């Protein structure tokens, strides 16, 4: 009946092609291990379900009241009972042993080739790459957010924590989820077989904008990954004097740089002394962090990966690229033609209106005057144009 359809539909759900967070289409070794374990369990559960439901169907039809005499008042047959207790126990033993071994496989950290720290906060993810020989070599630390870039075919170990409440890191195609708990560091294996982009989402309820805390994992082949690392470590280039972007730099420094770090940005006092502009989000934000925007335009999303920096066409091009073409396409970053200025503009104009956050003055009263999320900055359209022009050069 209906229940039956639902159960079998659940088993068949793996056949769908196009849901980016489908849990039945593993794209990496760890997710594959889970999948190898889960499909037989679903199959057995499905078969047992069909048998039980069929038995119920049979009984209610066969033994409905057709005027037969009162049935025998039997109180049960212990032998049958015990047999029917042992049978599921055996099935469960069969399920239990591979389960245990998979649990330990997925907790193994000895084959790590690359370490990335992942920090959750309301409502976005920060990734920092410590300087290491792993990942093909990273000379200086890199801080980025929204899109987790990893080398393909490499055993990456994520070290997860949180700055405020509990979040959960989940890229279904690459591995199961793991909570990020403040005060604790959890680890999660990550490995992607092919270059490509994989959707994910925070899955532990984390407050107002929980639905808007997304992320993507981007796998690049090792050469492309090195190019990406190189891009991230490129020094700051000031905008050409007098350009729109130069005005943007000033507007950014005056309005955004309190919280958002842009490495290499500096300010020049009238007497000519140059001081680096250092963000101090601790003073303004509950979590004490805001995304680092040094190379914003090398990533494709913003605001907790809720919106794309790319227009729909450009986005589809990246998402639908073959594994061979993907790296080059991704490394192009966001170009002026591809920039999704609509959402970005709305965001800069009034962020809390676009994404529910605790950022108004009334709401700040509960948290020592600090915001959770990005407040509305009251910028005029000219300033917004200038800032977007400035940000477009952060590639």
């Amino acid at each position, binding site marked *: 009946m209906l229940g039956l359809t639902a159960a079998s539909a659940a088993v068949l759900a793996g056949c*769908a092609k196009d849901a980016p967070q489908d849990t039945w289409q593993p794209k990496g070794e760890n997710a594959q291990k889970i999948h190898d374990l889960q499909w037989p369990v679903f199959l057995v559960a499905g078969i047992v379900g069909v048998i039980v439901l069929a038995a119920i169907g049979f009984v209610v039809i066969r033994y409905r009241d057709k005027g037969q005499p009162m049935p025998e008042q039997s109180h049960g047959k212990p032998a049958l009972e015990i047999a029917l207790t042992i049978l599921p126990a055996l099935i469960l033993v069969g399920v239990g042993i591979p389960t245990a071994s998979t649990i330990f496989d997925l907790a193994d950290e000895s084959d790590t080739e690359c370490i990335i720290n992942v920090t959750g906060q309301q409502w976005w993810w920060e990734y920092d790459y410590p300087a290491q020989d792993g990942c093909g070599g990273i000379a200086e630390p890199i801080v980025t957010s929204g899109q987790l870039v990893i080398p393909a075919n490499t055993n990456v170990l994520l070290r997860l924590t949180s700055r405020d409440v509990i979040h959960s890191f989940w890229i279904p195609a690459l591995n199961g989820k793991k909570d990020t708990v403040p005060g*604790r560091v959890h680890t999660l294996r990550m490995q992607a077989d092919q270059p490509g982009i994989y959707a994910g989402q925070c899955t532990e309820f984390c407050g107002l904008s929980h639905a808007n805390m997304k992320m993507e994992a981007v796998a690049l082949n090792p050469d492309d990954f090195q190019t990406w690392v190189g891009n991230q470590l490129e020094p700051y280039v000031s905008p050409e004097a007098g350009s729109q972007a130069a005005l943007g730099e000033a507007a950014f420094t005056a309005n955004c740089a309190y919280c958002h770090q842009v490495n290499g940005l500096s300010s020049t006092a009238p007497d000519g002394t140059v001081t680096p502009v250092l963000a101090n989000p601790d003073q303004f934000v509950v979590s004490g962090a805001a995304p680092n925007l040094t190379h914003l335009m090398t990533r494709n999303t913003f605001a907790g990966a809720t919106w794309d920096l790319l227009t729909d066409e450009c986005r589809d091009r990246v998402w639908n690229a073959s594994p061979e073409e993907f790296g080059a396409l991704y490394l192009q970053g966001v170009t002026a033609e591809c920039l999704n200025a609509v959402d970005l503009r709305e965001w800069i104009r009034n962020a809390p209106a676009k994404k529910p956050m605790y950022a108004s003055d009334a709401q700040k009263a509960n948290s020592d005057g600090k915001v959770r999320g990005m407040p509305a900055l009251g910028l005029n359209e000219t300033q917004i144009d200038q800032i977007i022009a400035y940000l477009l050069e952060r590639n």
Partner: protein
Amino acid sequence: MAIIERPSTPALAGSGAPAVVTPSQAYGVLKRPVSTTGWRSWVFTVDHKKLGIMYGVVAMFFFLVGGVEALLIRLQLAGPEGTVLSAGLYNEMFTMHATTMVFLFVMPMGAAFANYFIPLQIGARDVAFPRINAFGFWCFLVGGIFLNTSWFLGGAADGGWFMYQPNANALFSPSHGVDFWGLGLQITGIASLTGAVNLITTILNMRAPGMTLMKMPIFTWMSLVTQFLLLFAMPVITVALFLLMFQREFGATFFDVSAGADPLLWQHLFWIFGHPEVYIIVLPGFGIASEVLPVFSRKPLFGYRFVVFSGAAIGFVGWGVWAHHMFASGLGPVSVAVFSMATMLIAIPTGVKIVNWVLTMWGGKIWFTTAMLFIVGMIAQFTIGGLSGVTHAVAPSDTQQTDTYYIIAHFHYTIFGGAVMALFAGFYYWWPKMFGKLLSERLGKWNFWLMMIGVNLTFGPMHIIGLQGQPRRMMNWTEARAGEGFFNLGFWNRVASFGSLLITIGVILFLVNVWNTHKKSSTTPKAPLDPWDARSLEWITASPPKEHNFDAIPTVHALDEFFHRKYEVDHDTGEVRKIASAEEVLAAEEAKADKHIHLPSPSYWPIILAVSLPIMGYGVIFNRLLIAVGGVILLLAMFGWALEPSVADDSDYDPPVDGGGTSKELANIG
């Protein structure tokens, strides 16, 4: 005719005129309420049947409240980027939906049935502590109201029913919602705890002569296990809620990470309570199923002992599996593996029950009343819910499924498809017993099919939605991540929302059914004494039962006592012969009526004591002075209660009226 004994009055001792006394109309400190009619007879009652009915009515009300919350959630999710609710309101909605349904509907509805039927099923005249029973009910009512007043006092709780820390700290959830939630649950928790102590004592001490534990009706057995679970689970959540309150109200730092606390402490405390809670919810439903199936299959429960022991086993193992709610929380692989195995273990006793239910019907003579339909539907749906449970006992697989709609599908199949469908079966099955009227079977069958189809349309697609990766507790879903083709999220979300409408119509039909049955109470026929050809003790008395339940306490010789008084089984041929009608059985019992029956008298201390609690609750939240006010009432009520004898004496009645024209006769009930 049995006489309920009241202390002798001068009138009785005097002339031969009938004893006529009036309950005191005054509310002096020691003039206790003794009315048996009117609103006072309900508000001050200690009668387990009246309390049971009140539990049921209030729980039904909260079911509708929780249902409206659920409908708003489904309305929001019917399309992409839903805008029916704001993000904050959506979070409050799903928090309160779960809290209401679990704590204010399913649990108290189980308590309603337990209160009403345990004494009847074991042949007792009331529960062991009638006033504590009344106190429990009032705690539940005032706790539920207190919890829901938060909607009007700055917003309801918004941390999810599991209220994970630190997200539910004052810093991250600044409204008073979480305070209301914590204190409200403390108050309803008192109801559960006192109820548990009371019912366990009742069951263990007050069974009719001859009723050994292994001759006890199965619903009473399952309730007994439930009460033991409550007894040991409630203190754990009490500790957690106190820590939460101290943290939010008095500046303690139990879950404050910057002070060095570990947020996982809350998770452990919550789920050590939370998992037994799952069985607290579902075991009364199992009990009802195991009562209804034999009656309508005309066969004893298959493997009664196995059902009892599997229930007890679920009760035990239920304590060792809490961490399966935390497979993604970052426990070590060893604990994950251990809890994974323990969780699989609990599937075995659950499977035993399903097998026994099917085998009870096997070879029977099945009569498809509405109650029976609900139970058959429940078994089918619980099977699906149980099997999806096995898939996430497999911990690695669970890391893909937890916190997605797949989990929502799983536990709604077990709780709605299992427990709630069984509760509805209980309504249809026991309604004639409780009210002496049958609910309409025709409307009842509509009710059943709409709910059955509705549940499967609502929660069936959630398996797909979840496996397609839609996390739960999300205020909206986007087309961008909905996918295409047969399994796309958009289509199935719409189906689920449509299904919830069918459930709604089903529930409305039930209310209409109740309304129809009772509005023309003079014209609707009285239900037969034994409409279902039932098997257990609660049917060997009038419908509705008299205030003292049984004229004579029956002596029990067998499991299914009532059946064995009506039927004779030929042990050689297995042939079953009818030897007596229900009326004859009842008449035989009434002939032996006890002449003197002691019943506890009503009291108003329970309600006063209960009302003091939310006053203190508001005090904690808004003004500490109110705590003192509530505290004084609490103390006074406790002393008043302690000094009040359980049976009223002469001083509580107004002086008898000679020849009493208008006054009511009190002493004779029967």
